[in-house]
């Protein structure tokens, strides 16, 4: 009987990079239908080049953005550092940092992972892979133009949207549109009967981002209108773009590595739809005390508290999926990054809801607290998810495992230590700064001096992050440029499936003693 979910008639699958004989052999050895093996192998193969290119670009932007971030941080406690060149002044390097890590690193890494994941989830090949590749290229060019323009002093003056709309904007819009086109064509060509929750998150992100960008960059807005549009975009780009993709990925990687379904699938559905309905109201809480109608601010604060619903639903769900399996974090770098990222998602969201309250906001507004908060979200949550995803996906793209467990451990240790120090230092500095600013007995200079220990801590944390990123970039480089001699091992099973012979299966069975003990 035909149902609304019946997939469209299948296109011929038995063409492509993998030989039919190989697919038949793998399918026979694993007791699967040849079509199932072919779908999966071709789904992975279809996005391989694009995803690898996106990851490489993302890591380049991670390094560039990190250097600018370090420089901006140093300038806060060494204000005379590199002040002779205009393009190296604080206002430009700090903006270039934000632009590079948001649109370069995080967006490209997450888009790449989504391009790899979506065909898997809907059991088809990536449709319009050329569109996706071209779109990714345009996006990358747009990011580069935006960064150069910002450093050269061309700036639209809106936080998170500094890149000039008539220079970088067209590349980001057309590039993002082509990537979205490929995503939606892939979803439309699905062979899977069910849509997994990650599909909702991924497709939602590609619907929401253009809407946010158009409103944020609307050319006729000015003054207070512009401020409202600015924070409508800047807050929602985290929730509807970076968070949407990241949570979608967490819902895939955690159960996939653990080999058990998500704790409550119904909760995941509640989490997605409540995010979709409530999040867009949140942005105005950044303008508490600003020249906006009170009802707008109050509505935003109420909506921020409503965010408890999706956050708690998602947090409980991911936590309960892992609970009792924390030992897996020792074996899986992917899980280590993704689980910590999921914890950071819960933390940053709850922190954001509390920060929206007027009594908290009067202390934390215009302080380093906000910068710490954005790094809990942008780094501890989003970047950790991206790292975990890259560790999982790249071996499946290049056909061999990561060369060094030690480098992975160094990367994890450095970035964990760095971001912990960074967030702790700036959170403390923000509270000290806010309290000093509220004290009418204290001169302004005191509020600056009290933040200095926190600013040094932030810079040290930034240096640790930089070292971690260098380790990660080097590891990625040797991973994709690995000499032929290193590839002696069989290719990774999910790129070119390895035959599971009877001998290999017998060798992997638990011993009689283990079974008896169980």
């Amino acid at each position, binding site marked *: 009987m035909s*149902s*609304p*979910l019946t997939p469209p008639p299948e296109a011929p699958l038995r063409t492509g990079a993998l030989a039919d004989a190989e697919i038949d052999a793998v399918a026979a050895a*694993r007791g699967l239908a040849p079509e199932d093996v072919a779908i999966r192998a071709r789904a992975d193969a279809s996005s391989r080049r694009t995803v690898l290119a996106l990851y490489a670009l993302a890591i380049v932007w991670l390094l560039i953005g990190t250097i600018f971030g370090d420089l901006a941080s140093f300038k806060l406690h060494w204000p005379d550092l590199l002040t002779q060149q205009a393009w190296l002044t604080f206002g430009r390097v700090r903006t270039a940092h934000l632009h590079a890590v948001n649109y370069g690193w995080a967006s490209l890494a997450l888009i790449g992972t989504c391009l790899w994941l979506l065909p898997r989830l809907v059991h088809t090949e990536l449709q319009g892979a050329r569109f996706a590749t071209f779109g990714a290229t345009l996006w990358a060019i747009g990011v580069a133009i935006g960064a150069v323009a910002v450093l050269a002093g061309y700036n639209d003056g809106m936080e998170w949207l500094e890149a000039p709309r008539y220079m970088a904007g067209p590349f980001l819009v057309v590039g993002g549109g082509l990537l979205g086109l490929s995503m939606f064509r892939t979803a439309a060509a699905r062979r*899977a009967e*069910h*849509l*997994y929750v990650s599909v909702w998150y991924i497709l939602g992100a590609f619907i929401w981002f253009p*809407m946010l960008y158009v*409103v944020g960059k*609307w050319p006729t807005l000015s003054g207070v*209108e512009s401020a409202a*549009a600015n924070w*409508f975009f800047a807050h*929602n780009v985290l929730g509807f773009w970076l968070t949407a993709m990241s949570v979608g990925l967490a819902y*895939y990687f955690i*159960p*996939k*590595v653990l*080999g058990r*379904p998500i704790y409550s*699938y*119904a909760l995941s*559905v509640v989490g997605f*739809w409540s995010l979709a*309905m*409530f999040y*867009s*109201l949140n*942005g105005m809480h950044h303008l508490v005390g600003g020249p906006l*109608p009170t009802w*707008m601010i109050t509505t935003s604060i109420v909506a921020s508290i409503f965010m408890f619903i999706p956050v708690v639903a998602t947090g409980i769900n991911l936590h309960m999926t892992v609970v009792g*399996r924390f030992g897996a974090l*020792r*074996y*899986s*770098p*992917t*899980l280590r990054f993704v689980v910590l990222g999921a914890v950071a998602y819960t933390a940053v969201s709850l922190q954001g809801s509390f920060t929206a309250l007027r009594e908290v906001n009067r202390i934390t507004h215009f302080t380093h607290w906000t910068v710490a908060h954005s790094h809990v979200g942008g780094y501890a949550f989003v970047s950790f998810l991206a790292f975990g995803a890259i*560790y*999982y996906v790249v*071996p499946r793209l290049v056909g061999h*495992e990561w*060369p060094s*467990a030690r480098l*992975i451990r160094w990367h994890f240790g450095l970035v964990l230590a760095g971001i912990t120090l960074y967030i702790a230092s700036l959170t403390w500095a923000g509270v000290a700064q806010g309290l000093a600013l509220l004290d009418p007995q204290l001169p302004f200079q005191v509020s600056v001096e009290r933040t200095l220990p926190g600013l040094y801590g932030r810079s040290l944390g930034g240096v640790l992050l930089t070292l971690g990123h260098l380790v990660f970039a080097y590891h990625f480089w040797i991973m994709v440029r690995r000499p032929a001699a290193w590839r002696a*091992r069989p290719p*990774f*099973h999910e790129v070119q499936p*390895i035959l*599971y012979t009877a001998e*290999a*299966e017998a*060798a*992997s*069975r*638990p011993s009689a003693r*283990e079974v008896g*003990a*169980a």
Partner: protein
Amino acid sequence: MLPTSLAVVLATAAMTLVPVLVLAWGWRRGFFRDLDAQSRVIFEPRDWRVERPWESPAERLTREVAYGAPLAPRPGEWGGAEGGGER
């Protein structure tokens, strides 16, 4: 007062209401039927059978009874290095 932020108010209203309509549409289309099957759509037969080193013997036995003989993890299976488990 309202025109001060008309673009934001309209965009916010659209972004709040459209998901309600999409949810209703998806519900009628049957996208939320059989949630248990949806939760398992990411798994392939091999995923259930791969031996996970962090699982107890009882859990491994449960897997074997439910899904068949366990399979050894491949190098890099968990996103790491050196034979499926980090050393």
